């Protein structure tokens, strides 16, 4: 019933899920599998070579976030870094207090550890976000209590791209600490989605801990890092040989770390240019959607400085996201939905729900996230079929019947 395309095109619009690896990254990693294979802890030449690569990578990454090399801890993923920040601070400071501040729109790598801590007597304050998913810096500061030891707020949201005012919160937090003559609370940000597009200077952001991973920045999967500011006591979660300043034991994943450092360097160097290019594509797509598809609502902040440049999340009313994904997949267009039908829990997106979006809106949401491989032709290909798919599913949907108050409809 829908037209078959003459030429099928792979259109990957799910860069917030993960990215393919940049070929330059792969090339940088190549020698560290079979040739330079040594354990960085070994004294002999083979070990020293590996250790040299590790140190070079650490220096390169540190420079990109304006930190010292010893402040960078390499981990196994963004999730591990988030867990390390939360449990590590919680365990080191529970005598001071058992209260943490966060947002309801965080990634599950933050939310699930927080919910777990709750079972052990911790109290968590989730500061409300507005209907665009934005948080007010003052509201975060106001939530601080004498027993608050940590604030954890993601830099840019993975589902609808809202950018939190991290630098502003950081500045106000410094003022709070000064006024109260306290080192608390510490400040963590999950910057996984932001890493490809935003400035990550920890001195400008005033964060004490920052999570980044490789799989969203055209780097390898299975590598992450946690920046830990000097003078931020933290307990290790993984004990063993004492690698990474005893904070993360386990023989270092040299190839992965080299690849991560290379990928991070590449995206950070090209971020202005790439942001401008992608911004044009996102605006082009959104204009086309608004022009060609009725009854669509943008989820998250308006396209602009408060929204991550590569993210477009919209609800197509009266229809359901998984059905949309299946049709799009027939045309090999790849994107995501906040619908319950694709989730394990059969619950719609917690992010959209926290923004006050009714369930029926979340069910019909689609997320497009752009990246390196996308061009205007991708948007044109998508928009050749998306209006037809939406129309087909709407024709099958009873929802608008209720709106039209059909004469025979009871």
């Amino acid at each position, binding site marked *: *019933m*829908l037209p078959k395309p003459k030429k099928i*095109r*792979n*259109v*990957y619009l799910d860069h917030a899920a993960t*990215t*393919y690896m940049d070929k330059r990254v792969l090339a940088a990693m190549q020698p560290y599998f079979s040739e330079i294979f040594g354990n960085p802890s070994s004294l002999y030449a083979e070990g020293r070579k590996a250790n040299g690569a590790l140190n070079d990578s650490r220096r390169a990454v540190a420079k990109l976030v304006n930190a010292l090399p010893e402040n960078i801890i390499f981990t196994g993923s963004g999730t591990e870094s988030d867990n390390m920040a939360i449990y590590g601070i919680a365990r080191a400071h529970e005598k001071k207090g058992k209260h943490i501040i966060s947002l309801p729109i965080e990634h599950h790598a933050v939310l699930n550890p927080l919910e777990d801590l709750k079972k052990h007597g911790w109290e968590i304050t989730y500061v409300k976000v507005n209907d665009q998913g934005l948080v007010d810096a003052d509201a975060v500061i106001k939530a601080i209590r004498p027993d608050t030891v940590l604030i954890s707020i993601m830099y840019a949201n993975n589902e609808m791209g809202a950018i939190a005012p991290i630098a502003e919160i950081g500045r106000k937090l410094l003022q709070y600490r000064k006024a109260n003559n306290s080192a608390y609370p510490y400040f963590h940000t999950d910057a996984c989605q932001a890493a490809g597009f935003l400035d990550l200077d920890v001195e400008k952001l005033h964060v004490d801990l920052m999570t980044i991973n490789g799989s969203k920045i055209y780097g390898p999967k299975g590598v992450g890092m946690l920046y830990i500011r000097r003078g931020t006591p933290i307990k290790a979660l993984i004990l063993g040989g004492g690698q990474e300043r005893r904070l993360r034991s386990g023989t270092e994943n040299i190839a992965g770390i080299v690849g991560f450092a290379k990928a991070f360097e590449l995206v950070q160097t090209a971020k202005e240019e790439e942001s401008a290019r992608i911004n044009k594509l996102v605006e082009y797509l959104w204009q086309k959607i608004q022009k060609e598809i009725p009854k669509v609502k943008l989820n998250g902040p308006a396209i602009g400085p408060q929204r991550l440049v590569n993210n477009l999340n919209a609800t197509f009313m*009266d*229809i*359901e*996201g*998984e*059905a949309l*994904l*299946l*049709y799009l*997949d*027939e045309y*090999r267009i*790849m994107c995501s939905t906040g*619908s*319950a*039908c*694709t*989730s*394990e829990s*059969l619950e*719609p997106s917690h992010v959209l729900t926290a923004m006050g979006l*009714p*369930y*029926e809106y979340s*069910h019909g949401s689609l997320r497009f996230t752009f990246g*390196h*491989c*996308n*061009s205007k*032709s*991708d948007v044109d290909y998508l928009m050749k079929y998306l209006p037809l798919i939406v129309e087909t599913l709407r*024709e*099958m*949907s*009873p*929802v608008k*019947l209720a709106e039209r108050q*059909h004469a*025979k409809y*009871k």
Partner: protein
Amino acid sequence: MNQEPLKKEDMSQPVDIRGQDGGGWLYSDIVKDHFFHPRNFMQYGEDEKFKFNGMGRVGSPACGDEMVLWIQVDPETEKIKECRWRTFGCGSAIASTSVLSEMITENEGMKVDEAVKIKPQDILARLGGLPDRKIHCSVLGDKALQAAVNDYFRQTGQHNRIITAGAKVVDKVLNITDHDIEEAVLEGARNLEDVQKKLKVGVGDPESIPAIEDLIRFYTEKYYG
């Protein structure tokens, strides 16, 4: 696209939708066929013309699925001559309504007395199965059909034939009765969470939850106690 990050499988293969837990699930070819080529749905412009004498509606978009079924019953033979439907929901919800519409109208139509005996399992079998957590979708199809047949009985003044026999509606939003809870327990559900996975009961009608939990306890005791 200047790179080819992903190679997709042949389009004739079943669709593999991955859950967040990383485990895959598969839609059968039959499901895919009905999803991409739905039969008997109410097309634009048809709603004014299509003659029906029974209509059933279950679910709500807030719950994730909503289904409307219109049936045209021949009062002489009591066979369902034609039907139309509209469904808001995921791939399996659309496919299961489509396959149900085929089941009740093929071979010159099913008698209403037979039609109301269609169980979710019958729809599932015809679809070649569904992924576990998608089964709740097809449960709506038989509910919509029963509601449509009851509506036919109502419209033709046969109130005595309306099927409530022994069934007590516990969830008014989804028209789920105590019989459905019993069925779910027989299928292996042991607590509210299990039953909700199958039926979504109580999601749209939270007030019904205590009564549902009582029923689960009762039937678990009865069959497995």
